[in-house]
């Protein structure tokens, strides 16, 4: 049987294929469970540009209102922008209707608490219990609140916060020529305004029509950004940015048309932040060792967490990290703006770094220590991960082991991380080494173990 998660209710809230699986009833019930959990009060409701967004927005609004919440509808907004707005306005929480980088037939509900943070595992567990128990708060007519619309405040609040941490005038003076691929997503309009009007760039934008479907694979990767790379070369752009549909992930293309590894993007931002404010760094286990090198230059510690934004944010808060993120998937987390993955913070810091260093984007990236990275995936099977972990451990005796999230094996020449995906029925693995040969060996070794049939 093909394992497709057409509907998944769990660690990341509700995610599924709209239609038969992610139904309006389910979205409304989840909304009502959420309203019951956070209590009667204001709840922010926004979405990305997916076709199913408006339908689900009505369903979730119905559930929230039924629980006695007041719905503040912000419309199409990037996820980080919603999160900033939830916290700044003292709302009880928020729901973002977005399946992030998943294909367009999917949609999902992202859940934010009153701090504008993703629900942690305890909050999620309690909410899911409420959902299954169907013990919802049922507001009577005189407890019913209405719907408010506030589409304009969130981008303003978010951009104002980002600008406090960069030299705006310095960036404006350079009049950078910037390429942008907005994937016709939630950030499309805001990114144009941000780069062109606020940061004074000469903008060359594609895929910035939020009324259109995604023109490319939703996740911004080297393979999916051909159009941006072409545009960059044709227009001679200094740097290019690409977002995912909900504007939390950022991919960067340098002036040569090369798309940087997300780990290197994170490393550049970490470097920029630490140069201003030294302090601890937190990243997930799959993030590159380049972060350790950058941190070492600034004399600060790096903490590792399981993969997943909520996990990284928890580690950052526990360790008082000043910067962090998920190198593997293009998420910069800068808590001074907000403790969430934020492509706008990433764009601003990179432009600021270009302005202050006088280097080209490729020159800036070229100063980072070089690592060779490989990754792979295999179909998930129940009980498969444990034997794979044991087998790898046996094959690499004496290596340093971390079992926080699957298994991370660190050898003197590189590391392997193998784990189960939180969002898809996949086993994912990554390897990294300074040497291409070593990286190839580690990849081949892991690939071979992962490919072994179960029970052999």
């Amino acid at each position, binding site marked *: 049987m093909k394992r497709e998660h057409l509907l998944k209710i769990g660690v990341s809230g509700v995610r599924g*294929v*709209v*239609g*038969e699986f992610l*139904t*309006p*009833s389910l*979205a*409304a*019930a989840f909304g*009502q469970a959420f309203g019951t959990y956070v209590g009667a009060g204001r709840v922010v409701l926004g979405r990305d540009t*997916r*076709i*199913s967004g*408006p*339908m*689900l927005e*009505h*369903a979730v*609004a*119905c*559930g929230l*209102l*039924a629980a006695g919440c007041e719905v503040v509808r912000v419309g199409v907004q990037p996820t980080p922008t919603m999160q900033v707005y939830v916290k700044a306005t003292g709302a009880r929480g928020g729901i973002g209707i977005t399946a992030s980088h998943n294909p*367009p*037939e999917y*949609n999902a509900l992202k859940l934010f608490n009153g701090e504008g943070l993703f629900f942690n595992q305890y909050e999620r567990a309690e909410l899911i219990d409420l959902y299954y128990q169907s013990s*919802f708060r*049922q*507001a*009577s*007519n*005189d*407890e*019913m*609140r*209405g*719907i408010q619309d506030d589409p304009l405040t969130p981008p303003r609040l978010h951009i104002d916060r980002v600008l406090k941490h960069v030299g705006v005038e310095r960036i404006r003076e350079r009049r950078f020529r910037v390429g942008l691929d907005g994937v016709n997503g939630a950030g499309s309009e805001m990114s144009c305004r941000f780069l062109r009007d606020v940061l004074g760039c000469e903008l060359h934008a594609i895929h910035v029509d939020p009324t259109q479907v995604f023109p490319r694979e939703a996740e911004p990767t080297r393979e999916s950004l051909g159009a941006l790379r072409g545009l960059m070369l044709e227009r001679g752009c200094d740097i290019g940015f690409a977002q995912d549909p909900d504007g939390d992930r950022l991919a960067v293309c340098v002036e040569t048309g090369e798309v940087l590894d997300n780990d290197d993007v994170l490393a550049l931002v970490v470097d920029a932040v630490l140069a201003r404010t030294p302090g601890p760094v937190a990243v997930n286990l799959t993030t590159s060792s380049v972060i350790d090198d950058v941190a070492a230059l600034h004399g600060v510690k790096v903490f590792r967490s399981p993969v997943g934004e909520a996990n990284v944010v928890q580690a950052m808060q526990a360790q008082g990290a000043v910067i962090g993120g998920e190198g593997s998937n293009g998420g910069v987390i800068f808590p001074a703006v907000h403790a969430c993955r934020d492509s706008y913070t990433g764009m601003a810091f990179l432009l600021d770094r270009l302005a202050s260093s006088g280097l080209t984007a490729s020159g800036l990236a070229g100063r980072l220590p070089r690592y060779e990275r490989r990754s792979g995936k295999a179909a998930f099977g129940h009980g498969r991960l444990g034997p794979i972990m044991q087998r790898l451990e046996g094959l690499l005796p004496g290596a340093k082991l971390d079992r926080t999230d699957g298994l991370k094996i660190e050898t003197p020449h590189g590391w392997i991380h193998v784990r189960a995906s939180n969002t898809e029925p996949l086993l994912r693995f990554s390897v990294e080494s300074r040497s291409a040969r070593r990286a190839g060996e580690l990849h081949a070794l892991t690939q071979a173990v992962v490919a072994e049939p179960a029970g052999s």
Partner: protein
Amino acid sequence: MNERSKSLRISHAGLRGVVGNGLTAAHVLDFAAAFATFLQREGAVVVGRDPRASGVMIREGVTASLMASGRDVIDLGVVSTPVLQHSIRRLGAAGGISIGASHNAIEWNALKFFGPGGSYLSTAEAGELLDIYHLHKFDFAEWRGLGSLHRDEGAIDAYLADLASAFDFDDLRSYRVVVDCCNGTSAAILKRLNELHGFRFVLINAALDGTAFAHEPATDRRTVALQLAPLVEPLAADAGFLFDADSDRVAFASERGEPASEEMVLPMLADHLLTPKTGQLVITNLSTTALVDVVAGWHGGRVVRVPVGRQAAIDALAGYSADQVALAGEGTGAVMMPRFRFVYDGIASMLGLLSLMSARRCSLSRVLAGYPAYSVLKGTHRLSSQRVPALMMALRERFDDGAANMVDGLRVDWEDRWFHVRVSQTEPVIRVIAEQRGAPPNALFESLMDQVRSFM
């Protein structure tokens, strides 16, 4: 009686309940999805609501399910049920959903369903809708095929234009009328009637406040007496009218401030509309005043009596051609006329009564004085369902000297009086009603109640 047992009713008339206590978001979403699955014809679905605060929650849920089913939704905002029905036809829509609990208290709400042309669902259609609801198998569209939401602001104006072509507004606009809107949808309609058509109606309880009605929006003599009747004389008005929240029923008081019986609306409109040219039939239920028969007799018309409840009247109408029927209605102030495609319409009924006054060139109290007086007594008793057949048999034997009709409980008619004993469709009670020309039928009524008590 346990309050909870009365708080939700799912029937051929649709979905009705106390919001929170009985009627929940889940019911709303499922019913709207069932309706979308039920609809045969392509096209949009029109949605409108009365001003109850819970109506926003319900509208969101209805909208989500309809969109998820691939139906475009046209939201009319706060409008009456007759305006909604009018717009279904005007917009060529596949059907419509009215959100509003008409004459019920503010904590209630309901969904009523209409087919193409704004028609009521027949009992067979309503049965099919219920079957789909219970089966819980809905035809949701896949993500590319979802419907979208549109707004239509012109519903009331278009409806009034239609009324203007059916009634002589030049004649009627000279009447000074005071209206108790019960904080319902009639306020919005009559405000436009004043603005657009130069009427001078004085409106009370006209604020569309969704959490507080000035009083229960019931169209009966008792409610007319509360606030409306005392104002008619001081304001030197020609008449006072009162509407339920969705404006499909009307009650009234004369220029002397005397509240009329709600039973009078149907016979007076029959008196106005029955001519040899129009249809000859009046369709009404078994509990409606015998005055209808008297009036029909004056014009050579005939009365068809059907069981109590809208559904029976709607099904009966289907058996006649439109030009055979002069009007149909109940003793509750709900009347439908062929000119308005047999839609229960309180506003049209009011204009009909004013037209009657105008045609007779006399005051409302003089018109009322022209009808023979009837006295009616009504009572209820708690139901014990098992003993109903025995009770009916006993009553039939005891009153075997009259003409019996056993279509809905038992009705027995004599020359100048009649009674009807039946089981309520809305509450677990037996209803007893007895009417007599002239003085109240006290002895008959008491013996009926004694008999009922002895069985229940």
